[in-house]
C-alpha cells in the first residue's frame, strides 16, 4: 500500500546519521498568581532532556501520565517554545533559527496528536483536514491533492468515499486515523507520534504499526513514538526511553530495558503492564507504587523518584543521580540500579 506514496526528496543529503539532537531541553510553564498575574512558580514539564534520534530510527518514549512526554514531543517540533536548550534537526538549531526557515522546515516534521477528538477542526470535512497541510505548503494542484487525500485514507484503512464527512461522524479510532493521514500528507522526514494507536482496536493497531514500519523502511522515516502500550512500543522501537517527572530516567534497546530494567520506575512500569491472558493476570506480581505522585512544580530533592521508591536510601534524597551507563548501551539515572 505504502509503495504508492511518492518520495518528494530524492534523499540527496549525505548527512550524519543523527536526524534530531535534543540538548538540555527544558519547558517550564509559568503559573501566574496574585492580582498582578505575576509568575509565582512554574510547572517543570520537561526539565533537562538530552536525546538523539537517528535517521530511520523509531525511538519509543514511555512514562507516567503527566511526566512531560507530549510536551517534549511538542517542544522538539517547536509547537511549544522551549524555556532552555536546543533542538538540532539536520544540523539546524530549531530554537534559534529564523521564523521563515522554521516554517519551511515544518513540512518535514509532523505530529500525530494524542487527542483524536480535539485535534480535528469540527467545522471542516475530512478531505479538507487532510489536505490542509498540502494547501499550506503549496503542494500539488487541487486535483492532485484530492487524489492524495483518497490515497491516504486508503493507506490508513478508511473508506476514500468518506472525504466529505465531518469528524463527528467518525468513531474515536477512525478519527485517530484521520490524524495519521494528515501527518503523512506531506511525506515528512520525522514524525512525533503521540499515542497514535491508543484508540484503535488491536487489529487496526497492527495495521497502523505495520504501516508506520513500512514507511520507515521505504522512506527512511524517523519517529518519536510515544505510547502507553509497552508491548506496542517494544514492537516498533529498537530503543526505548523512559521518562519520569520531566527527566529521562532510562534509555536503552527495547530488549535490554524490558529484560533488565535498571531504574526502579521502569521496573514498576513493566510490572504493571496488563497481560492479555486472564490466568497470568490472576497470578502475576505487580508493584503498586505507593507514596504521592510528585508535582512538577515542586519536584522532590535528589532523585525525583525517591518518595515512591522502595530502594531509596539517604543519598537518593540528597543527590540527583546522573544518567549514566549501567549496562552496555543502557543508561539509567539511579544510585541503586537493577533488580
Amino acid at each position, binding site marked *: 500500500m505504502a509503495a504508492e506514496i511518492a518520495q518528494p526528496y530524492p534523499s540527496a543529503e549525505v548527512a550524519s546519521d543523527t536526524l534530531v539532537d535534543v540538548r538540555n531541553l527544558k519547558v517550564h*510553564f509559568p503559573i501566574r498568581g496574585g492580582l498582578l498575574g505575576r509568575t509565582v512558580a512554574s510547572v517543570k514539564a520537561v526539565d533537562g532532556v538530552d536525546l538523539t534520534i537517528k535517521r530511520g530510527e523509531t525511538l519509543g518514549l514511555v512514562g507516567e*501520565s503527566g511526566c512531560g512526554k507530549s510536551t517534549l514531543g511538542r517542544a522538539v517540533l517547536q509547537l511549544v517554545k522551549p524555556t532552555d536548550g536546543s533542538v538540532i534537526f539536520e544540523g539546524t538549531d530549531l530554537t534559534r533559527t529564523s521564523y521563515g526557515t522554521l516554517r519551511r522546515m515544518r513540512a518535514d516534521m509532523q505530529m500525530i496528536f494524542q*487527542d483524536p477528538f480535539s485535534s480535528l477542526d469540527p467545522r471542516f470535512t475530512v478531505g479538507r483536514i487532510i489536505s490542509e497541510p498540502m494547501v499550506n505548503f503549496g503542494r500539488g494542484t487541487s486535483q492532485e491533492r484530492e487524489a492524495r487525500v483518497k490515497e491516504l485514507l486508503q493507506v490508513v484503512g478508511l473508506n476514500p468515499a468518506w472525504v466529505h464527512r465531518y469528524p463527528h*461522524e467518525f468513531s474515536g479510532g477512525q478519527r485517530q486515523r484521520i490524524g495519521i493521514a494528515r501527518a503523512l500528507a506531506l511525506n515528512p522526514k520525522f514524525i512525533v507520534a503521540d499515542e497514535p494507536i491508543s484508540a484503535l482496536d488491536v487489529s487496526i493497531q497492527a495495521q497502523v504499526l505495520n504501516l508506520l514500519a513500512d514507511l520507515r523502511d521505504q522512506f527512511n522515516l524517523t519517529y518519536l513514538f510515544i505510547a502507553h502500550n509497552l*508491548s506496542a512500543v517494544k*514492537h516498533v522501537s*529498537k530503543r526505548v526511553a523512559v521518562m519520569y517527572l520531566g527527566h529521562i530516567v532510562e534509555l536503552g534497546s527495547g530488549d535490554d530495558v524490558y529484560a533488565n530494567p535498571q531504574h526502579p520506575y521502569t521496573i514498576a512500569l513493566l510490572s504493571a503492564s496488563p497481560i*492479555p491472558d486472564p490466568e497470568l493476570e490472576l497470578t502475576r506480581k505487580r508493584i503498586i507504587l505507593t507514596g504521592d505522585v510528585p508535582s512538577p512544580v515542586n519536584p522532590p530533592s535528589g532523585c525525583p523518584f525517591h518518595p515512591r521508591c522502595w530502594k531509596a536510601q539517604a543519598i537518593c534524597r540528597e543527590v540527583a543521580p546522573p544518567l549514566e551507563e549501567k549496562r552496555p548501551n543502557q543508561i539509567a539515572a539511579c544510585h541503586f540500579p537493577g533488580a
Partner: protein
Amino acid sequence: MTEKLLEVQNLRTHFFTRTGVVKAVEDVSFYLEEGETLGVVGESGSGKSVTSLSIMRLIDKPGKIVGGKILFKGEDIAEMDEDRLLQIRGGKIAMIFQDPMTSLNPVLTVGFQIAEAVKTHLKLDDKAAMNRAAEMLERVRIPEARRRLNHYPHEFSGGMRQRVMIAIALSCNPQLLIADEPTTALDVTIQAQVLELIKGLSKEFRTATLLITHDLGVVAGTCDRVVVMYAGRVVESAPTHTLFKKPAHPYTQALLQAIPRPDEPPGSRLHAISGQPPSLINLPAGCPFAPRCVKAQARCRQELPPLETKGAGQMAACFYPY
C-alpha cells in the same frame, strides 16, 4: 430469575445522513448484573460508543434509537422522559466518555465541574462539594489535588484530563458505570490504580461496570464477561476465561492474534485482519464478517448467522465456530 440491573434488548441505533442510513447499532442485546464488570471489545467503528451513548440517551440528530429496549432496573430508558433522565444520568448511571475534552467544559475550572456534579446528585453544600472534589482528584492520583481544583482543563495532560472525567463519574457512587476507553491515555501504573478504584467501587457499592476497551490485557485483568462487537452487532459473548481460551467467532480469534506479544522479535509483522470492515450503510447480505473471514463458506454470504449458545455461557453468531 433475578432482575438484571441493565438489560439491553435488540437495540438499534441509526444515523440518518445525506448519503444514507448508517446502521451503527443493529440488534444488540446484552445484560449486566449488580457488581459485575462486562467488557465490550471490537472493531473500531463497530458501534461500541454509540451503544453506550444510547444507554445514556445521548444520541443526537441525525441519530436515533429506532428499536429495542434499554431496561435499567426494569424501567425502559428508551422511553423515559427528560426529567427522569436527568435524575438518573450522572447519578445512578455515570459515564466516562471516550473523548475527555468535549465532555469537560474548557471555561470552567476542574474543581467547579466536579463540585457541580456532586451538588446535584449527592445534595451537598458548596464547601462539602469542593472537599469531595479534592478527595476525588486525590483518589485518581492527581498530584497536589487541592491546588489543581482551580485549574482549567487545558492545563492538564491528556491522561490527567481523563482522570478528571473519571473523578466526576465516580464522585456520585453510581449503580451503573459506563466507561468508554477510560484508561487509553493513562500509563500502565496509573491505569492499574484507576482500575483498582473501579473494582473497589463494584465491591463497596455493587456498582456494575460496562467497560469498553481495546486493551485485551485490561479485559483479561478486570472483566467477568466480554461482549465482542463487529459492524454494529454482537458477534460473540463469553466469560473472560472462555473467550481467551476458546474463542468461538473467527473475528474474535483474529483479534486475539493481532496482539503484539512481548516474546516476538521487534519489527516482525503483526497480524492485522486483511480487508476493510463493511460499510454500515450497505451491509452485505449474510454475515458481516464473511468478506474478511478465512473460514467463510457460501452460506455465510447469504444468511445472517444468529447469536446462539455454543458452550457454557458462550454465544456466537457464526455457522462455523471454533
